[in-house]
């Protein structure tokens, strides 16, 4: 199978798993991109760009239910912008292997959190609540 077909298939799978289990898209996008042969630096950067259409459509779908408070979203979102630069500079300055390991630790935390949430959820709602962590 070509690189393109694999990327598209992994994209569909990553989107499905992210929405199904309520984990962030990057959690699945980054390992996917590393699997496709990218360095951790490129994987992290590319995963952020790949997330944009997913989040945009997700937010747009929610606007139909009138649940988006745009003013609050703008304030919180704008406040996060300067820190994204800090995050990028730190990520870029870290060695590739180290970045990969830090990401692996985060993956373990997400996996444990997901398992914890599932084991402690009431029987009828065994799936963790998607509200806890939006796909993004």
């Amino acid at each position: 199978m070509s690189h393109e077909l694999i990327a598209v298939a992994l994209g569909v799978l990553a989107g499905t798993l992210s929405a199904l289990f309520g984990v962030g898209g990057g959690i699945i996008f980054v390992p996917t991109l590393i699997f496709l042969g990218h360095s951790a630096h490129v994987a992290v950067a590319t995963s952020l760009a790949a997330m944009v259409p997913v989040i945009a459509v997700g937010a747009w779908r929610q606007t139909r239910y009138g649940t988006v408070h745009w003013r609050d979203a703008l304030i919180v979102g704008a406040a996060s912008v300067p820190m994204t630069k800090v995050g990028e500079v730190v990520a870029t300055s870290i060695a590739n292997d180290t970045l990969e390991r830090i990401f692996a630790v985060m993956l373990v935390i997400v996996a444990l959190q997901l398992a914890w949430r599932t084991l402690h959820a009431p029987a009828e709602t065994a799936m963790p609540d998607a509200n806890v962590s939006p796909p993004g």
Partner: protein
Amino acid sequence: MATSLAAILLTAIAAAASHAQAGNVAWRDAALIGIPAVGGAVLGAWAHQRITARNVTLAFAAFLLITAVKLAL
């Protein structure tokens, strides 16, 4: 949750732009993965309403752990 998504949209755009300045964004793969992922997310959200099996979620958590070990080694 909806408001958080809208806020994260700004965060993701800013973060992606910053990483793009550093020259690390593989745009082609971002599109190849990100656009099909939109369809996947719709499918996943639909399935989320219907699947209530704990074992499936625990299996996914185990899969994430295995991925973490593979990345770290």
